[in-house]
């Protein structure tokens, strides 16, 4: 169970990233944020976001057009 869940479904670039960044503020260090999105571009973008910021993309998957990301706050 993630420490916080962000529903970014229906939002387009760059809103899922911007909202995730904001949501990460409420996640304790080492804690996790789960993000749900429907923007197909978010797959590449969350990987780039994590590489650049130093947070860890623990896992990501897709189910019926909904993308799920799990980010561990390590930065």
């Amino acid at each position, binding site marked *: 169970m993630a420490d916080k869940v962000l529903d970014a479904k229906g939002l387009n670039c*760059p809103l899922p990233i*911007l909202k995730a960044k904001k949501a990460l503020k409420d996640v304790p260090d080492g804690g996790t944020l789960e993000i749900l999105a429907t923007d197909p571009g978010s797959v590449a973008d969350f990987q780039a976001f994590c590489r*650049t910021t130093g947070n860890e993309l623990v896992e990501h998957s897709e189910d019926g057009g909904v993308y799920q990301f799990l980010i561990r706050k390590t930065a």
Partner: protein
Amino acid sequence: MSEQSNGSGSVNPHSMTIIVTKGSLDWAYPPFILSTTAAAMGLDVTMFFTFYGLPLLLKDLDLKVTSLGNTAMKMPMMGGHMGMPNLVSAIPGVDRMASKMMKNLIKKKGVASIEDLREMAVEADVRLIACQMTMDLFEYDTSDMIEGIELGGAATYIEVATQSHINLFI
């Protein structure tokens, strides 16, 4: 050894500047999308608003788009993509209609409004510099502009740019 701070030669690898020169609804997107995203990714971001980009700092935005002279502007319509002949674009009211259509599309597709992106830029401490010369040229007053902006000129921008890793002109 002098401290590595504002001195010349020290470039912050996590920094970006954008010169914003266009203020139509469509052209307002790239600078605000990039600045907010870069800030979210931990970069120090500075935007320099000059010429037609300057009105993007006005308190009240009324952004419009025109298809006049823009052959690549095609909107999804009736199952296809339709452009508009220049002659039609020039008819009064057509720009307003096209702007309304694009704003509807923006809402429908979950794309942020420029007002929202700008607010997020301010919240993320993006440095917003209004070009003083353009303020004078087009007779704008700081009271017309949103809070938290700075005034500056070319030298102000160049100083920031010399310390910035990514410098864009849009």
